């Protein structure tokens, strides 16, 4: 196109140059004009030939042909002009050459116009093509994008959607809906995955069914045990509402399980103490201590009275979350009756023992006093041995009776504010002679100024002398017994420490049981009836205190019991403060 435009311009220039040559010639510069003519004629002819060879536009052919006709005529006219008279060239020129030249110029301009038009057209066409190229590019790009999106969407439908189904299925199965299945739509990897997934769910279902069966069997077993057991079982929620009541409990408390469920504990078992124990268990997640449940629960229904031993356990999940309490009430009515009969028997027996013991003890005494007459040394020895055993028997009978009375609650405790140090000192005064005779050192260890205690002076005195008596029995000559009194908070601790053989660990709890004796090899003689500590324990407990032993074999034992600080004293102190 550029070439075409240049060519058009050069043709026009040649023709213009020729016109200038003519004009120069006209105005007297013949030589110059002729030189210029000669030089431009060649260029014109060359350009004309080029234009003639390069006819591209409609009408261009006619114009070229017209110029081709006009040019020889012009040459002829130019020759005629050269040959014409010097005085008339302008006239010739104006009348002949110029019209011819104008026509030639006109044709040249036509050629130029045609070519320019062609150029414009070409440019327009080029622009159109370029626009077309841009539009087609955009269209192709848009198509590519649309196809890309469609393809992506298709891909996503193909891969993501099945994945979504799996996520949903996994969630459902995770939530326990094991009958959920994934559709097996295709035979590809997704389809295979779906098959395996469904297999897995089916195995889980089988496993669950198996577990469920086992669980049901376990539950059945437990429920049969709970139903058949004679003990009352009461299961309560953490907020003390009944969740289970076994038949024994239904009978004991006269309420059906279905009616009791959801009711408050107190509505079913009307006992504040039991409720407070259950509450505490639910709160601290730990069953009550042995002392707290030592006193049985007594339930009265009409004329009958039932006694239950209390056991309470927290119900926890494996993670330790409290889900309730289990209260087991063991019917000990019968046991209590047996116990009462035993106490009555012990009481009767010990009573019946007293009369013959009186005549025996008196007879021994009288013989030793030589009331009936003189006795020799050997007779005296025998009588003394017999008297000693009669005294031991008397002691046992007295203790047995005391114990049965304490156990049946008949031994009255006469509580008054008393000085524990005073009791301790008075109690050992009775044993002073024996202590000195055995060659044992007695030391008092009084810490500070212990408060008064609420206690029965006689009974506590008995406890102290019993424990000191035991210590004396087991302490060798040269040993030491330490009697301590110290206050710890609202309790006064009275302790008796000896340097005896100590008590093996396995016996330390049992020594407070009736008739229990620590069996020792090679130790003969030094033993009591095994009842003093049982009585001591009962007495201390009746005071609201506790008794225990700390002992290490070979190093000695330390018996400690506690008594509550007198309330009157506390009251006074509070007022004073």
């Amino acid at each position: 196109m550029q070439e075409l435009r240049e060519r058009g311009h050069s043709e026009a220039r040649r023709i213009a140059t020729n016109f200038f040559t003519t004009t120069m010639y006209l105005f007297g510069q013949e030589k110059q004009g002729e030189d210029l003519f000669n030089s431009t004629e060649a260029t014109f002819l060359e350009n004309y030939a080029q234009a003639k060879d390069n006819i591209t536009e409609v009408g261009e052919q006619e114009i070229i042909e017209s110029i081709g006709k006009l040019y020889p005529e012009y040459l002829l006219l130019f020759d005629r002009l050269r040959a014409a008279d010097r005085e008339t060239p302008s006239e010739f020129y104006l009348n002949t050459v110029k019209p011819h030249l104008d026509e030639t110029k006109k044709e040249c301009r036509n050629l130029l116009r045609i070519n320019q038009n062609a150029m414009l057209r070409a440019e327009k066409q080029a622009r159109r093509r370029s626009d077309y190229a841009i539009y087609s590019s955009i269209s192709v790009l848009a198509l590519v994008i649309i196809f890309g999106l469609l393809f992506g969407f298709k891909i996503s439908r193909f891969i993501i959607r099945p994945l979504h189904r799996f996520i949903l299925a996994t969630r459902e199965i995770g939530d326990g809906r094991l009958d959920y299945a994934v559709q097996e739509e295709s035979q590809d990897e997704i389809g295979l995955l779906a098959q395996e997934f469904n297999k897995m769910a089916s195995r889980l279902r089988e496993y669950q069914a198996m577990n469920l069966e086992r669980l049901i069997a376990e539950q059945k077993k437990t429920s049969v045990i709970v139903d058949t057991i004679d003990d009352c079982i009461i299961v309560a929620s953490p907020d003390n509402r009944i969740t289970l009541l076994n038949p024994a409990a239904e009978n004991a408390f006269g309420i059906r399980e279905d009616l009791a469920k959801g009711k408050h504990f107190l509505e079913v078992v009307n006992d504040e103490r039991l409720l407070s124990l259950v509450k505490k268990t639910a709160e601290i997640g730990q069953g009550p201590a042995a002392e707290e449940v030592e006193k049985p629960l007594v339930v009265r229904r009409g004329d009958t009275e039932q006694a239950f031993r209390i056991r309470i356990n927290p119900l926890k999940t494996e993670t330790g979350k409290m889900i309730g309490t289990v209260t087991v009430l063991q019917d000990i009515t019968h046991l209590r009756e047996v116990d009462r009969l035993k106490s009555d028997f012990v009481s009767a027996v010990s009573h019946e023992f007293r009369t013959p013991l009186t005549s025996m003890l008196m007879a021994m005494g009288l013989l030793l006093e030589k009331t009936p007459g003189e006795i020799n040394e050997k007779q005296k020895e025998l009588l003394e041995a017999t008297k000693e055993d009669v005294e031991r028997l008397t002691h046992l009978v007295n203790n047995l009776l005391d114990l049965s009375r304490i156990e049946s609650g008949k031994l009255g405790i006469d509580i008054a504010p008393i000085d524990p140090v005073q009791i301790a000192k008075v109690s050992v005064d009775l044993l002073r002679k024996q202590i000195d005779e055995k060659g044992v050192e007695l030391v008092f260890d009084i810490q500070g100024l212990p408060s008064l205690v609420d206690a029965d002076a006689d009974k506590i005195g008995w406890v102290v002398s019993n424990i000191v008596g035991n210590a004396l029995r087991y302490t060798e000559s040269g040993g030491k017994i330490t009697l301590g009194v110290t206050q710890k908070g609202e309790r006064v601790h009275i302790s008796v420490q000896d340097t005896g053989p100590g008590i093996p660990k396995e016996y330390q709890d049992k020594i407070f049981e009736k008739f229990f004796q620590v069996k020792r090899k090679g130790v003969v003689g030094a033993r009591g009836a095994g009842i003093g500590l049982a009585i001591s324990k009962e007495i201390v407990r009746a005071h609201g205190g506790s008794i225990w032993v700390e002992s290490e074999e070979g190093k000695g034992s330390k018996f400690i019991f506690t008594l509550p600080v007198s309330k009157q004293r506390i009251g006074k102190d509070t007022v004073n403060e």
Partner: protein
Amino acid sequence: MSKKVLVVEDIKNIIMVIRMALEARGYQVMVAQDGVTAMQEVFSFKPDLILLDLVIPKLDGFMVLEGLKKDEKTKDIPVVVVSAKAAEEDIKRAKELGADEYLVKPFTPEELAEVVGRVAGQ
């Protein structure tokens, strides 16, 4: 003049040892083996002290004690209850009825002599 002790007791072995112990210490002893006899002997023997068992035939020890302490003529005679009953309620009841002392069986001759001596000497 020796003091007179009425022993109200039904078991012969006990009667024997008590009599021996007291007589050895210079007391004059009279025995009544039941409650009714005891009430009669109080008036005929006129004891300075009565040793009274609670479980005796015909009239039990408590009734005898009550009768003695209600009667103006006998209420000042000291009574020592001698019993195998060691229950506190029995001791309390006897004391309330006017017993001067309560000696629980078994006891030694010294213990008996000490109590009798102390009460009779008052």
